[in-house]
């Protein structure tokens, strides 16, 4: 049981992870994540890569929606912009890290344009405006043959870091992991700064925020740009990961997927983002693994139980919304509290 957290300096007080216990857990997590590809098969590494990409994209949406209160239904399209921008640059031999920056920046620029209506509208109206962006951008992906390959899609060359080609998922993992870590820590840090706090103030009450001297134009557009930047980088990594992409991937369904991830995980929290992305990626896999397990003894189980997976997945999401509206984050917090207070109260 921990009885207190004594902070004796401002540096200590401002630390991202102030206690030694937190730092130790974080170190253990970092070591485990770094060692992961050495101890598991390619399938698990592939899943870990997807979790990383989903975490980055969901973090972007959480910045916009969870922290700033700007609902976006066009997040998948911004990922598409990043993916196609990366494919275009990679085909021209641009180094991978520069490609990621380029993809994110282009998505951010578009985010600023799309964010302009947010100055006049909010809530559901803004959601509809971003929905229009979703359809518009997907239309561009399908029609702009010379850049996007049209409906046939585009091939993305292998990622390359200083001449070292990332041919396998194991190698891609070591690109995705640090990028995801950097972006998630960056996002968490952001909300300890003036910019991040301005975002939160806008979310809580934009008129009050303006009265306090927060420039709504500047900060709302910054939020859109930042969220889109994250989506663009995630899209670029997705392109490198799959090495080929078609416009049919970046559907409204994917935007909803990310919205569901941040709601299930916990709005306005980076930890919630991670938990939501992990949940949305791994639960369908676990359900499928259960079906595969049953199918070893009952060969027809795949046909019968597969449709049930979606039902169970849907019920799980509904269950979280009904019984734990604050998302997985709240469950995590309760779990932590019970460890902190053990054995006096569990």
């Amino acid at each position: 049981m921990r009885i207190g957290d004594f902070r004796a300096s401002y540096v200590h007080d401002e630390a991202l992870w102030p206690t030694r216990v937190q730092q130790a857990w974080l170190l253990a997590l970092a070591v485990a994540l770094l060692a992961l590809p050495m101890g598991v098969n390619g399938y698990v590494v592939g899943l870990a890569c997807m979790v990383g990409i989903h975490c980055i994209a969901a973090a972007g949406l959480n910045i916009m929606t969870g922290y700033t209160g700007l609902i976006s239904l066009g997040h998948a399209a911004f990922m598409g912009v990043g993916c196609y921008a990366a494919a275009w640059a990679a085909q021209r031999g641009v180094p991978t890290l520069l490609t990621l920056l380029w993809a994110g920046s282009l998505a951010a620029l578009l985010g600023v344009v799309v964010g302009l209506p947010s100055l006049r509208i909010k809530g559901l109206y803004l959601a509809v405006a971003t929905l229009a962006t979703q359809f518009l951008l997907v239309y561009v992906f399908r029609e702009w043959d010379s850049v996007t390959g049209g409906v046939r899609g585009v091939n993305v060359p292998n990622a390359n870091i200083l001449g070292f080609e990332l041919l396998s998922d194991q190698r891609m993992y070591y690109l995705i992991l640090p990028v995801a870590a950097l972006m998630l820590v960056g996002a968490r840090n952001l909300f300890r700064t003036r910019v991040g706090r301005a975002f939160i103030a806008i979310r809580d009450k934009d008129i009050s925020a303006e009265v306090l001297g927060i420039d709504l134009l500047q900060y709302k557009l910054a939020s859109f740009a930042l969220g889109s930047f994250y989506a663009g980088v995630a899209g670029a990594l997705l392109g490198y990961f799959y090495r080929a992409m078609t416009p049919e991937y970046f559907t409204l369904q994917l935007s909803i997927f990310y919205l569901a991830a941040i709601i299930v995980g916990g709005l306005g929290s980076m930890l919630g983002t991670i938990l939501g992305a992990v949940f949305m990626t791994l639960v369908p896999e676990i359900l499928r693994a259960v079906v595969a397990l049953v199918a070893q003894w009952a060969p027809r189980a795949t046909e019968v139980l597969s449709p049930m997976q979606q039902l169970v997945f849907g019920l799980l999401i509904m269950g979280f919304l009904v019984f734990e509206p604050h998302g997985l984050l709240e469950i995590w917090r309760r779990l932590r509290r019970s460890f902190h207070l053990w054995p006096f109260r569990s």
Partner: protein
Amino acid sequence: MHTNDLINSSRRRIVGAGLGAAGLSTLPIRAALAQSGELVVAAAQPITGVFAFAGVGLHQGLGDYCDWRNQAKGGVAGRKLRYVGEDSGYKMDQAMSVFKKLMGAHKPPVFYGDSTAWAKAASKEVSQLGNTLTSSPSFASDLADPTNVPYYFMAGPTYTAMGEILLEYISRTSRGATKPAVAVVYSDTEFGRDPIAGIKAKAQALQIPIVQEIVTKPGAVDVSSEVAKLRRAKPDFVIFHGYVLAPIPEFIKQMRESGMSTTPMGTIWSMDQTTVGAMGAAAQGWMGVMPYRYTYDTKDAPTMQAIKDYAAKARPDMKYVPLFYTHGWLVGMIFSEVMERVLKAGKPLTGPNMKAALESIDNWDTGGLTGLLVSLKGHQIASGRIYAYNTDSKLMEPASGWIKTA
């Protein structure tokens, strides 16, 4: 115990059980395979999702072929086949995840995916691994490419080849000096757009005028303005592509109501007996291209008889064997033929060896499943036959001989 504790404890148990199941699910099979030397036929099947109408049949057909092969022929070159299929939900992410999972767990020499998107995304990895031959229900024209997609084949003609077969039929059956006018209606999807350039080129070569080209949403409901365009263009034939059912029945219904005598035609996924039956009255006059026989057409077709018999024995509740099942069965036949050729030559089951074996398949008798002897040199079976719906018998019946494209 406190309510929260109960919930937490249950959650822990559920999550633990799920994770345990995920880990355990692959272990027994892997161990068994290492000992028995079974050949794994792996698949990511679209059992749920928008392609589920076909996915269940594809899954059953491929799985049943493996069982039938084991029972009837003792497997392939003395090694039993083992089918491992999981649901892809017709989502690229999920299909790739199943692909990676099954490749890691079983190292299958052959893999069946679920879509064009999967085939394109997996092709680079498959090429880099170089030890797996793949296929899927996609007949996308750019996948029949032995140079750029070396380890992929399709058990049928490309969508472009299907369009060419339809046009060949139109050309061959036309009377008089003027060729019939054709309109093309297709969905605004990768699937729908795929053969359009090829169809136009073939029509030009056959001097068939394409008088109207209409693009719709995949499941469009209101097609009145499109039908008005067709009425003005007065085509003799309308080729529908990129749909399974909707909006074809609505098109035909409105065309009939406006007095048009145009013949509607379709491609493979609109040609299943149940799909055509679901068109209702609109099915009258429906024609289309089919690369396989229907399972009730067993005359001089021992494979079709075998399919019918096996399905009746293994799936007594199955009233009608869909074309998706037949497709899955044929994919199993090709996988087995390729592996048998490689193993009988005493070579390992590597990608290059299986590609060479695939391309060596020429004048291959499928037992009547396809009408002509099969060549897979171009990684596709470029032949098919025109079938027309008979409203009296409620069956699709042959309207032409088997047509082969170049």
